Structure formats: structure tokens, C-alpha cells
């Protein structure tokens, strides 16, 4: 329980820091009182959120052509009279208007804008002027991240950046052992071997950029280094950008086909210490839990109906049904709502963050401490003294120190450490959740009369009591340790020639993940009552408490980069060039290092800041390809034209501030699908069927056997390539109040590693993926932002939308017998299925309509279209039925700030998305039964709308029948997956400076924010289904209501 002490220690550090700093702030507060009064002049000081002086803020008198600028101490003096209104403006800060009421000195606080427009943009391996940027990117800043209460920053991304599509697939992080364990007991976890597995602490939010599911997601670059780290405190992040085009990513060379999610953390800034402490507590509420299980009585009644339909004897007698209905026999005829019994309505999420930032020009530092604790939805037993609920707790320490060693040399050192612990119930949360969803209310009682756990032999999933699984099955702990060291050296070589500098970067990251398993399984007993004699028969496979320790993943990544920079302006000609050499090595568990090496040259030129040319060449390689086939050339180029600087606009059109055209084209690569040295055939033992010779069992000569490793080698294995074209414009109008960014892209991916359609079985082995695939992705992206103020009322609205289309051009598809079976030419995520055509009518039965072979359709079944007209419904009648249209996704951010009150909201939505709802929620009884393939599942209230002869006119679902073709995936189960969410909203109030200063604080802000506030879905028939997280056993998506305060010292 060292973890608890860590928590106390952490709290102690925070308290000490705050105590010490309070006095410091109070002392320091006197520094501004020295202004000299002159008659007729209004004087004052302008400060920022941290109570630090703002230099360069513009102060003007409303309605008069008088203005002044603040000096380095934030002081200003302006010629204004009482009754005048002073207007304070400062870039990226909200405008405020203050009437002059007396002669006293004014103190004005300027608050950061929610949406920022920066002059400098962080790009891969550097920073450039936004005006000369040719690539296609979208950026969000700190304020847009911190309104989202969540464990990882990806939660803040939906709806905020054009081109970026998210799909949440779980509401809780997935402890790696959950994947690795084949079943929760009796097997030890499998150590995750590399071979393409990348440890990633984002298991919740899937990211797709520009509709490209083939490449899968984005490469995350944190401060210039590729790291799969999502659990960074959003407050310590300066910005997150998505880099979408070839020119922006080509420096990653053989890894550059994926878009880049570029995360830049806050760097140390010189100045007096800025201390900020935020504490927040949230309630999480599960969304998308069905909640409308049918009662035991209804279940039994429906089950009998189903058996009737099948011509089988009913399972439940009238007496049984009565007992269920009246709850007269809670043991023999139980009615248990497992979801209500085992799950909490609300679970907590808390976090505390401390940031300290300051220093001198010679040495500056930033330190942040972050603690986060997220609880799960499972109830706990009062008589169990360990935590059996799902829980995530995490401590993060991040420090960054920048030292200017000499006039030319500066050194930056970042240290990042993280300790994370995930506790989960011994029976594993996904197992418990899926069993809750599939266990009928009448399966077995919670407890038997003698106090033992109830169980039933009727189905194997009833052998283990759900209460015992969720509250009395021990626990598993996943511990994750992350260490990251980042060192940057910057040596200015201006002495040699002006504008030349050299940079060296070294990074070492280490992650380890271990599992401690203390789980067990209890015996359940089936309650048997014959006449008045009661017996209990044991069920299940009980096991004693295990105590196993196993490392699941260790990953060590190192990255070294040296670059030579040249950047100089010759009159109207701006020239810059960079040369890079970098190598990245990743060692996963016991694999050989995966080494990527880039040697790149980048050059750009601009004339008068009007015309831009840029080009990059990168000779890049990956060591897991065959010797001699490891390196290749990747290149990209871009052109730009700042039209607004042309005289015909500059002189004539004053409402255009900036109008830049840009276009890029390049060839990128992706080694992501490379196998583990699969260019050479290898042989293995253990994978072959075991066999033995000789008498006896096993015989005298036992062996695991040696066999060819499959898929067999592909000697020509190479990286995937893409040719990407992007054209766009960045437009700024009406004094920068209206900003528009638009893009069109055309990305041809080729040499894709795909399963060939020409895999003839005569080969006798499974085929490796071959580099033959070709896919095309095209789309348009648009972002429009408008920001303005009416006096003190500052408001903004920003909208973005993306249309993303994909097309499978080639994968050597086999010739299909019917044209509608062909996949080539269709979108990559097209859904194939049958075409349903209402319910079978009596006339249809008479007409002997087409049906799957061996099945005679009955009235009330789903009717299918017989596309090839052969009288049989089979795979030849499946055609593309869904996801045929380009996916459209959009988001809107809007809000205002008025005298310290702030409001922001993020809306997000998708359309042209389609969902397969042929799942166990929608299909009563999980589509399974005693009588064959499976076990009876739970049923939900939608099943009441099943087809019966009486409800033939209004039925929404087919008649009840097991193993019938009613479960074939058809348009019947294809539903619109469109949705629109109020994803996030925040209301905050920054207390006036006068008030917070009286408390000896630099600033105090209180806020309430919320996530997933409401959702409008196109598919409403089944209320229990969330449009994003809806798989059986998936942890539900959470609505989070969060309140907190930020103290600045």
C-alpha cells in the first residue's frame, strides 16, 4: 500500500508549496505601487492571469484617437478624463473596457483568449512563422484542452480540428493484461512481444485523419520525439496540432505517411515564479448502458413463445410464470436486475495539478506535479477490505530546465516520470460487463437460502455467480512506469556565419508494465427444490487466490538527432536550410531493436514574404527489411503565395488582412506493417500440432514438432508509399476577426501491404501480406472562425467540417461471380450484407420466396432480396449496403467572456456514418439458445416489439426464433450512426484582481465543466446504445460533470 503514502506525500508537497508561496505573493504585491501621478493622466498597470505585468498592451480611449502602450513593468499612462472609457487590447487576450471613475491608479487584468492565433507555429522539429507555413495543419491551445475533464488529452480533440475524426471505443483505460489474458483465471498473462505492438496508453479514443483507416491513426510527436504518451496533464500542454500533408510529415521519412499529432508542452519562461494549482472533482455517469432489461416474468414468457415458434415444448409452466410474476419464490424463481445490483450510477474522477514556472534568462525552469484518480462503476462489498472496483490512479512529475550556458550555447533538459496503477476486479471488467449484459434476470438468485452464491447449470456462463465475480473475485493490479529524459543542445554558430546554428537532441524513454494477479473464483450452487427437500449442487470451477507477478511490456525507446540550421534574410530574400540526421531505436520486451534512420535536407526560400518555395528530401530506412532493401527516398515540396501582400489587394481591399494560397505534394512512406524480419523464411516449434510415437499416452517419442512459420516469407517486402497532394488557403478578414482555412486533398496510397485476393490455396501455406494495395483518399476541410467583442463582451465562434472519401483501387481482388460482390472501387470501410425487405407475409410463404438453403421462412421472419434470383439466399446475395457515402464530420466551438465570466461549448457530430446493430442488445436472447449453438442471453425491452400474429402491423423486430436466418446481417440491422453531441461545456469565473489580491493570491478561478452533456442520435429505437461505445463488454462512455478551482500565486 505504498501508493497511499505516496498520496499523502504528494498532498504534503502541494500544501507546503502553497503555504510558502502565499507569503511570497503577498510580499511581491507591493511592487506595483510606485507610479507617479500627473494631473490629466490616467495611470495604471496591466497584468495577465498570473498577475504578471503585460508589456505592449494597447490602451486607447474609446471614441478618441488617443492610445498608449504598456511598458515592461506593465505600466501605462494615458491622457484621459473621468468619464472616458479605456479600451485595453492585447494580442490573444480578451479586450476589456474600463471607465475612468477616479484618479486612482487602475489595475487591469487581461485574460487569455479561448481561441488563440499565434504568429509562430510549432511544426515538426521546429517553429516557423505562421505566415510562411505551407503545410496543412490545425492547432488547438491549452484553453481548448483544459475544459475537458479526462484522463488523457485525446478526449479534448473531438470536434476541434478539421480533418481529425475520433471514435471512442471504451470509457476506461484498458489494462494491458486484459488483452493479454486469454481467460481471467487459470492462465498466466502472455508477455506482449513487439512484432508491431506499440505500447500506448490511449486505449479509449481511436483517431483517424482524413478518412484513412488503412494507415490507422496518427503518429504522436511530443516535443520533437515520437512518443505514444497520452496521459499528459492538459495544463502542461502548450498546443496540439495535427499535421496532415506530405510536406509537414516527410521529415519522418519511412514513417511519414501517417499524419502527425504534434504535442508541444509548456517550456520554462523566465520571470518570477508562477505557481498555479488546480484541483477538480468530477462525477462520471455511464451512458449507453441498456438499463431496460425485461423482467424475469417477461423473459420466461417470451422464451416460451420462442419455443412455441420452434415447435418445441415450453420450458416454463404456468406456475413458473406466476412465481416469476409475483416474486413468490425468490430462490427458485429469481428476478435479479444485475446491472442495478452491481453497478454504481456515479463514479468519481479527481485530479490535482501543481505547476511552477519561472527563472532568469540564464536559467529557467518549470515543474509540474499531477495526480489523477479515476474510479470505476462497480459496487464494492463492505466486508471486503481491498479495492475490487476498477480504479486508475496516476502521478506525473514533469520538469524542464533551460540553461544558457554561454552566449552561444543553451541546454534544455526535460525529465518526465510517471507512476500509474490500474486496479481491476479479479474477474476482469470486460468479462463482468459482458456477463451482466447477457445474463437474464431469472438465471439464478444472488444468494441461496443457505447464504451460498447462486448459480445454475443451465448455461456455462451461469456457473459463476455475477456478484461473486464482481465483488469477491480478488483483484488485478497493472502498474505502469514511464520515464522520459529529453536533452536539447542549441549552439549558435553566428560567429562562423550569421544565421547558422547546430542542434543536438537526445531522448530516452522507458516504459514498463507489470501485472500482479490476485484473483480467484468462487463456487456457486444451484438451488434445487423438489417437493420440500432442498439440495444444492456445486457449479463452476473454483480456484484459490493466485498471487502471480508478471511483466507484460517493457519498452525502451531512444532518439538522437543532430541538425544544422541556417536561416537568414538577404534584403527581400529569406533563405533557410536545415540538414538532419536522426535515428530512433525502439526495443520492445525481447525483440531486437526496431531502428529507423533519417537523413534529410530541407530548404526554403521566400521573396518579400509573398512567394514561398520549400522542398525536403529524406533518405530514410528501417532495419527490419531485407539487407539492401532497407532505405528509400522520400520527398516533398510546397509553394505558397501571400496574395494579400500584392498591391492590387493591399491598396484596394482593406478588409482582407491575409490571403495565402498554398499547395504541397510529396511522397511518403510507412513501415508500420512490416513484419518481424519476415523477408526470410523461418521455422518454429510449438506452433505445429503435437504428436508422438510409441505405445502409451503420450508415446515414447514426444515432440512439439517443427514447422514452417506462417505466413511464409515475403522476400520482396517493402514499405508502403503514398503520393499526397494538398491545396489550401488561409484567409484572414475584417481585421483578423474572421479567419478561414480551407483545404482539398488527394492522397494516393500504394504498395500497401494487404492480403492479396490472388492467394491460391495450392501454395499450401497462408500468404504473407503483399505490397500490392492501392487506395485513394480525397476530401475537403473547412474551418471558419469569428471572434469579436461588444465592449467587455468578448465572443467567438469557430466551426469546422470535413468530408472524407476513400476508395479501394486495387488489391488483386478475385473475380466475383456477380458484380455487386466486388469490393474494388468502393470505400474502404464499406459494409456488405443482405438486403432486407420487411417481414415475410402469408402470401410470401405461399409463394415460397427465396430463403437460406434448408430453411422454410415463416410469417414474421425477415424477408431478404434474392439478388441473383436463384431462389436461395446465400453469400451471392450480399452486396454493399452501408458506408457508401463519404463520411462527414464537424465541430463547433463557441463561447464568450464577460468581466471574468467565461463560457465555452464544443459541439461535435458525424453524418453518413452507418452502424451494424446486429448485436446482442438488439437481438433478443443474444440470438442464441439452449437448443444448439449457445446459451440464452438477456433480452431488452425492444424485444417486446417483436413480430407476433397480433402485432403484425406494428412489429419492429422479427418473430422469436433461434438459429433462424433472422440474425443474418442485413439492411434490417443497418442503422444510421449519425450523431450530434454537446461534447463539452464550461462555465468559469475569474475573480477580480482586487478580490484575489486581497486574499494574497495572483488569481483565483472557479469553474464547472462537463463532457458528453447530451447526444442526439439518428438511431433511436434502442435507447441503450451509444453511437460510439456499444460493443458487448465495452466500458460505457461517461458523462462527466466536473467542478474545480485554480489558484495562481
Amino acid at each position, binding site marked *: 500500500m505504498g501508493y497511499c503514502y505516496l498520496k499523502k506525500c504528494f498532498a504534503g508537497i502541494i500544501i507546503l508549496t502553497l503555504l510558502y508561496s502565499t507569503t511570497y505573493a503577498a510580499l511581491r504585491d507591493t511592487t506595483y505601487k510606485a507610479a507617479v501621478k500627473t494631473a490629466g493622466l490616467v495611470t495604471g498597470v496591466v497584468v495577465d492571469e498570473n498577475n504578471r505585468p503585460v508589456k505592449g498592451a494597447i490602451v486607447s480611449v474609446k471614441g478618441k484617437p488617443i492610445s498608449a502602450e504598456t511598458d515592461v513593468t506593465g505600466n501605462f499612462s494615458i491622457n484621459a478624463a473621468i468619464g472616458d472609457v479605456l479600451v485595453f487590447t492585447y494580442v490573444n487576450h480578451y479586450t476589456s473596457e474600463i471607465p475612468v471613475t477616479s484618479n486612482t491608479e487602475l489595475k487591469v487584468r487581461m485574460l487569455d483568449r479561448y481561441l488563440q492565433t499565434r504568429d509562430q507555429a510549432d511544426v515538426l522539429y521546429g517553429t516557423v512563422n505562421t505566415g510562411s507555413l505551407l503545410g496543412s495543419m490545425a492547432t488547438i491551445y491549452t484553453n481548448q484542452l483544459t475544459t475537458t475533464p479526462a484522463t488523457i488529452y485525446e478526449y479534448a480533440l473531438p470536434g476541434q480540428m478539421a480533418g481529425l475524426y475520433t471514435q471512442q471505443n471504451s470509457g476506461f483505460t484498458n489494462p494491458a493484461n486484459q488483452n493479454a489474458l486469454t481467460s481471467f483465471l487459470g492462465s498466466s498473462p502472455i508477455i506482449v512481444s513487439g512484432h508491431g505492438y506499440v505500447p500506448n496508453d490511449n486505449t479509449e479514443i481511436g483517431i483517424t485523419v482524413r478518412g484513412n483507416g488503412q494507415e490507422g491513426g496518427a503518429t504522436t510527436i511530443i516535443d520533437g520525439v515520437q512518443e505514444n504518451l497520452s496521459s499528459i496533464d492538459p495544463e502542461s500542454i502548450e498546443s496540439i496540432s495535427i499535421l496532415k500533408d506530405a510536406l509537414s510529415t516527410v521529415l519522418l521519412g519511412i514513417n511519414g505517411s501517417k499524419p502527425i499529432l504534434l504535442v508541444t508542452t509548456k517550456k520554462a519562461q523566465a520571470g518570477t515564479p508562477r505557481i498555479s494549482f488546480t484541483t477538480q472533482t468530477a462525477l462520471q455517469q455511464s451512458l449507453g448502458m441498456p438499463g431496460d432489461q425485461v423482467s424475469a416474468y417477461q423473459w420466461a414468457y417470451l422464451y416460451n413463445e420462442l419455443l412455441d415458434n420452434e415447435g418445441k415444448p415450453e420450458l416454463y409452466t404456468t406456475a413458473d410464470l406466476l412465481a416469476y410474476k409475483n416474486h413468490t419464490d425468490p430462490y427458485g424463481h429469481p428476478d435479479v436486475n444485475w446491472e442495478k445490483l452491481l453497478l454504481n450510477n456515479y463514479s468519481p474522477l479527481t485530479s490535482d495539478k501543481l505547476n511552477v514556472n519561472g527563472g532568469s534568462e540564464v536559467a529557467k525552469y518549470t515543474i509540474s506535479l499531477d495526480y489523477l484518480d479515476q474510479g470505476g462503476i462497480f459496487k464494492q462489498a463492505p466486508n471486503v477490505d481491498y479495492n475490487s472496483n476498477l480504479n486508475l490512479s496516476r502521478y506525473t512529475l514533469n520538469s524542464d530546465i533551460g540553461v544558457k550556458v554561454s552566449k552561444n550555447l543553451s541546454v534544455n533538459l526535460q525529465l518526465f516520470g510517471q507512476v500509474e496503477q490500474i486496479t481491476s476486479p479479479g474477474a476482469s471488467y470486460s468479462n463482468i460487463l459482458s456477463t451482466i449484459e447477457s445474463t437474464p434476470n431469472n438465471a439464478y438468485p444472488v444468494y441461496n437460502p443457505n447464504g451460498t452464491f447462486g448459480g445454475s447449470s443451465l448455461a456455462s456462463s451461469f456457473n459463476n455467480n455475477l456478484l461473486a465475480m464482481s465483488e469477491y473475485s480478488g483483484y488485478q493490479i497493472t502498474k505502469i512506469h514511464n520515464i522520459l529524459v529529453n536533452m536539447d543542445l542549441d549552439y549558435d554558430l553566428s560567429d562562423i556565419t550569421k544565421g547558422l546554428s547546430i542542434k543536438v537532441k537526445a531522448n530516452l524513454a522507458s516504459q514498463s508494465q507489470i501485472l500482479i494477479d490476485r484473483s480467484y473464483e468462487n463456487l456457486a450452487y444451484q438451488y434445487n427444490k423438489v417437493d420440500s427437500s432442498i439440495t444444492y449442487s456445486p457449479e463452476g470451477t473454483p480456484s484459490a487466490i493466485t498471487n502471480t507477478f508478471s511483466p507484460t511490456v517493457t519498452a525502451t525507446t531512444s532518439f538522437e538527432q543532430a541538425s544544422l540550421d541556417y536561416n537568414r534574410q538577404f534584403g527581400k530574400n529569406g533563405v533557410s536550410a536545415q540538414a538532419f540526421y536522426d535515428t530512433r531505436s525502439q526495443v520492445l520486451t525481447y525483440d531486437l531493436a526496431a531502428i529507423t534512420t533519417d537523413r534529410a535536407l530541407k530548404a526554403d526560400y521566400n521573396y518579400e514574404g509573398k512567394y514561398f518555395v520549400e522542398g525536403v528530401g529524406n533518405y530514410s530506412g528501417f532495419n527490419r527489411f531485407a539487407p539492401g532493401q532497407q532505405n528509400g527516398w522520400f520527398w516533398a515540396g510546397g509553394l505558397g503565395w501571400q496574395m494579400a501582400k500584392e498591391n492590387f489587394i493591399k491598396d484596394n481591399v482593406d478588409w482582407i488582412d491575409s490571403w495565402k494560397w498554398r499547395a504541397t505534394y510529396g511522397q511518403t512512406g510507412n513501415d508500420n506493417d512490416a513484419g518481424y*524480419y519476415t523477408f526470410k523464411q523461418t521455422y518454429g516449434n510449438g506452433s505445429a*500440432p503435437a*504428436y508422438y510415437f510409441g505405445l502409451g499416452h503420450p508415446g515414447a517419442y514426444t515432440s512439439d514438432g*517443427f514447422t514452417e512459420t506462417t505466413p511464409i516469407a515475403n522476400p520482396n517486402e517493402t514499405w508502403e508509399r503514398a503520393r499526397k497532394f494538398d491545396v489550401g488557403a488561409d484567409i484572414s478578414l475584417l481585421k483578423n476577426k474572421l479567419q478561414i482555412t480551407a483545404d482539398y486533398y488527394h492522397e494516393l496510397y500504394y504498395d500497401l501491404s494487404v492480403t492479396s485476393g490472388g492467394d491460391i490455396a495450392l501454395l*499450401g501455406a497462408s500468404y504473407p501480406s503483399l505490397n500490392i494495395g492501392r487506395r485513394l483518399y480525397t476530401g475537403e476541410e473547412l474551418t471558419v472562425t469569428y471572434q469579436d467583442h461588444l465592449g467587455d463582451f468578448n465572443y467567438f465562434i469557430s466551426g469546422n467540417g470535413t468530408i472524407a472519401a476513400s476508395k479501394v483501387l486495387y488489391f488483386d481482388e478475385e473475380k466475383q461471380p456477380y458484380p455487386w460482390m466486388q469490393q474494388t472501387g468502393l470505400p474502404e470501410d464499406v459494409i456488405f450484407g443482405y438486403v432486407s425487405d420487411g417481414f415475410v407475409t402469408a402470401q410470401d410463404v405461399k409463394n415460397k420466396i427465396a430463403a437460406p438453403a434448408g430453411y422454410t421462412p415463416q410469417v414474421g421472419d425477415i424477408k431478404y432480396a434474392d439478388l441473383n434470383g436463384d431462389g436461395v439466399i446465400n453469400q451471392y446475395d450480399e452486396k454493399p449496403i452501408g458506408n457508401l457515402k463519404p463520411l462527414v464530420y464537424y465541430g463547433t466551438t463557441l463561447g464568450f467572456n464577460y468581466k471574468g465570466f467565461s463560457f465555452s461549448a464544443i459541439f461535435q457530430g458525424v453524418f453518413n456514418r452507418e452502424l451494424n446493430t446486429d448485436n446482442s442488445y438488439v437481438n433478443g436472447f443474444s440470438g442464441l439458445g439452449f437448443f444448439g449453438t449457445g446459451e440464452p442471453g438477456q433480452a431488452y425491452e425492444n424485444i417486446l416489439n417483436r413480430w407476433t400474429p397480433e402485432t403484425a402491423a406494428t412489429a419492429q423486430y422479427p418473430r422469436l426464433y433461434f438459429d433462424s436466418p433472422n440474425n443474418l446481417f442485413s439492411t434490417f440491422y443497418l442503422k444510421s450512426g449519425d450523431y450530434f453531441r454537446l461534447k463539452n461545456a464550461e462555465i468559469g469565473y475569474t475573480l477580480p484582481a482586487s478580490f484575489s489580491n486581497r486574499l494574497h493570491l495572483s488569481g483565483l478561478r472557479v469553474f464547472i465543466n462537463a463532457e458528453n452533456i447530451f447526444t442526439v442520435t439518428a438511431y433511436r429505437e434502442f435507447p441503450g446504445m451509444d453511437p460510439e461505445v456499444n460493443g458487448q463488454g465495452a466500458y460505457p462512455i461517461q458523462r462527466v460533470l466536473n467542478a474545480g478551482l485554480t489558484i495562481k500565486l
Partner: protein
Amino acid sequence: MKRYKGAIIILAVFITSFTACKKYETFPIDQVNINKVFDPLDSNGTNAQAYLISIYGILLKGHNRLDGSDYLDAASDDAVSSNAAALKTPTLLSTGDYNSGTFSDALSGPQTDNLWAYCYGGIRQCNIFINNIGVVPIKDVVNSNGKINGIGVSERYILQSEARFLRAWFYFELVRRYGGVPLLGNTVYTVTQNVALPRNSFSDCINFIVNECNAIKDSLLTNPLSSSANYGRVTKGAALALKARALLYAASPLFNGGNIDPSNPLTGYVGGVDVTKWQAAAQAASDVIALGAFSLDTINYGRDVFLTQNNPEVIFVVLNDNGANIEKEQAPPGFPAAKGIGETSPTQDLVNAFPMLNGASIGAAGSGYDPNNPYSNRDPRLGNTILYNGAPWLQTSLQLFQGGQNEPNNGQVESLTGYYMHKFMGYSETTATFQNHNEDWIAFRYAEVLLNYAEAENEYSGADNNVYAALVALRKRAGITAGSNKLYGLPPMGSVSPDSMRNLIHNERRIELAFEEHRFFDIRRWKIAGDGPAVMNQPRRGVIITTSFGANTYTPTTVLPNIFPGTFTSKRYLYPIPYDEVAKNPQMKQNPGW
């Protein structure tokens, strides 16, 4: 000194950063390449032998094979899958509910009986072994029982011959399902080579199998084995038995004279009946008999053939674990302590095929058959093969009447026909739970060779002494009473027409080899599945037993009702080539009708 400072620092940096350090290997050392498997320096050939063992592991084991729960015979007229509603593989095969598309490669494997890709997988492994074993200097020379012309054979050539046998057998499994298939020779194809090969003719395939058996028969171990550690390896007897079976199939009507597409060399021989093919088949079977190494196992009327290893009847066995897995799938339900599912339900027709104890068929005049007591006084093989109402089981008598303990009609899977399978099961009649027992799959046994011989000999030269000798031996072992003429119920020699003798041999084969994956192919090669008696176009039948005051009433019933007649058309004599294979390979010709 000051001006050297820079140079010294630069030098120091160079020294620290470029000091040589050994890196990782360029190819993972744990990855085994072919030189390590077929190691030219390993005189034990450990890895090479392990490679061959993995090929043995590919061999089919018929127990619970289809869907992991049914016997292939449930796809013939001998049985049905008890789980008919779930459209299990045997039901689909039985009712013809499949096409070349559902026979796609994605669904292939022993569980579906679509063995196209599976067998070519085995053939590939055999070819890798055959091509490479030559470099392994295995020092053993087998003198005692592996000989070519009396000279000892190096172990590596024995191993190579074993691989060639396995390859021939994989081809045979293909040929009897699909007709002629592409023969790959010794080539191991890589992904860069063109594998769009055409099919070889049926004749080529049979010749290949027969030639291979001939070529390897003298470089294999011989029975009886000198060491029990070699039990399970391919022997000369196995090679000859495979040859005999292949020639028997080749001589059979489906391929010899009854080709479903008379001009198509892929589906059988072109031209009329060639009776010498029967002669070749008879000769091949008699070659096995002439080895003198095998005999019928008489313990418990042959029941122990499947339960004891190394009995004299075994010619080739696919080794398996000890266990009670057969019981878990096939034993009757209704016993909480020994749960069975009863997946494969034997049909009434199979039960009726068993003669009386005196050898007379139940329909024959004076057989003594009592319809009200149908299971008494029957061939002991009936009890060994089938569990019927009243049969002893788990210390009780089975209740297979309606509502009885073992046919409770409670909705769970139970026999559809009123019978459960009994063959291969251990002695669980007298124990409270299932006993673990030998579950080896006997692929070739002497009884089959005798039946192969009797069938071929009867076709070629009529019901002669040799035919009688084979049948008498089988019936005697089965426990049928000898009768006064010592013919064990067979009609007197000379009194029987070749046709009725043929029917008698067919019936004997049906009951002797029931559930051993023969009937499914026999009704095809005899061309009686859809023609003549068209056994597959008859409904499968069972019995409904009702009991009243101790008296049982037996009422025939139809199971699998709604799909007959006429579903077994001529195309179903052969499987379709998987659709994908034809679509991807322009040279691949589909079987007729698919």
C-alpha cells in the same frame, strides 16, 4: 595551450561517441532457418525428425471431427447430427446445402471436411521434408526391418519414405473428394512463383499415389515393429493398404465406367468399365494379406481393436491422447455425473443393417427377428456399435423411450433417432463415470483390407473361395454363430448371384466399418447415393419408443424430413472445388454441376 582547447574538446567528443560497441545481430538469432531444421551436421537429425512429426500431426483424426462434435458418417445415411436445427456441417453435407462458395477456403479444415487447402498445406510440408532430409546425416541404418534388396536402409530414407506416404495420403484424401487435383511434384512454391496450376486427371492422381506406394514400400519399417517406440510410424503394410484402397476406389463405378461426366478425365476414367481395375485392386489387397503381419483382433468381437494399442489388426494409426472426449460428445445425455451430448444419432437403417446372431438379415425368412424386441439376438457388433433402448450404460439400462432419462425431451440436444453411437467408447457400462481410454484413430486396419479384397475379388472373379474366406473370417470374429454349414449365415457357395453377393459385401462393409469414415465415400464410389437405391435421397429414419406398463412400442419416424427426395444429384458425387480457387486460378476447372 588555450588554442588547442577547442580541438581537444572535439577530439574527446569524437572518442566518446564513436568508440566501437557491438550492436545487435542483424537477423534475430532466435529465428530458426532451414539449415537448423535440416542440419547437415546433426547425426541425430533431431529437428528434422521433429519436422516430420509435425506432419504426422496434420493427419485427420475422425473422432468428433466435423464441427468438433460429429462423425463424418453423420453426413451419410448411417447417422444424422442430433443438432439438426443448428445446420451443422454434417447436416449441410447430408442435405446438399452447400455450394462452391460455401466451400470457400476461408471455411476449410477438418471441421468442415473441405480439405482442399488443408491437404495442400500437408503436401507442402511433406515436400519441404522430402527435399531437405537428404542433407541430414542421420547415422542410423535400419537393418532388421527396413531393407531394400536385403541391404539396410539409412534412417533418413525411411523418414523420407514416410513423408512420401503422408503426401500420397493427402492426395488420396483430395482425390476421393474432388476427383483429379493438381499434382505439385516435389516443388515447394514461394509467393513469387506462379501457383495457378491446372488439375491433373483422375488417372494421373491414382497413378501417382500407387507409384509412390510402390516406390516406398521397401524403404519403410515393416510389421511387426522391432521397437514399440516406433508404434505409429508408417510401415510397409500401411503403404500397401493405401495402395489397395486407392485402387479399390479407382475400380469403383463412380470412376470406372460411371464417370459423372463421361468425357471428363478430371472426374474419373474416360470410357467404359475396365474390369481389370478390379483385378488390380484385389491383387493390391491380397498383397497386404500376403504380408502375414496382420490378423483380426478377436477380443470382445473386435471391440478392443479401438481400445488397445498395438493389436494385430492395426495397420496404420493416427495417434491421439487418452481421454473420454468421444463420450463427452457422443454419449447419451441424462447422466449428471458423466455428461454426454449425443451429437451423432445413428439411423434406423444402420441398425437394420446388422444381421441376427445367426447371420441372417432381419428381413430374411426365419431370421428370428422380433419387431417388439428388436435388439435381442442380434449380431454382437450392433451392441458394440450402437447404444439402443435398454442397453447397459453407466450402471443402468438406457431409457430411450419418450420422456425417459436419456431422451427427456427437455429441449437440450438429444438423439433424434432413438439411438446413440457406441463404437470407440470405453467400458463405461459398469462404471459411474467415463473412463479414460485410448482414442487413437485407426486409419487402416486389417478388416478393411479383407473387405477391400472381398469386394474387388467378387467383382473380378465372382464369389469364389477367397471371397468366402474373407467374409467368414470377419463374421466369425464378429461373434456370429457358425451355423451347421460353418458359413456364419452366408448363403451356400454357388447359390448366390454376384449381385446379391455384392449387396452382402456392401452391407458387411457398412456394419463392420461404421463410423470409420468409410460409408460417406462408399455410397459415392458405388454410385448408390443418388442413383439406384439412392440412399441419400431417402429420408433418414429413427424410432420413437413409447412405453406403457413395461411394454415398448416401436414406431418408425422420419428425421431430417423436409429436404428429400432428389437433393442428391449427380454433381454431389464430388465436392465442388472451392469457388475462390477457381476464381483466382484461370487454369482451375470446376467439377461438373457446381
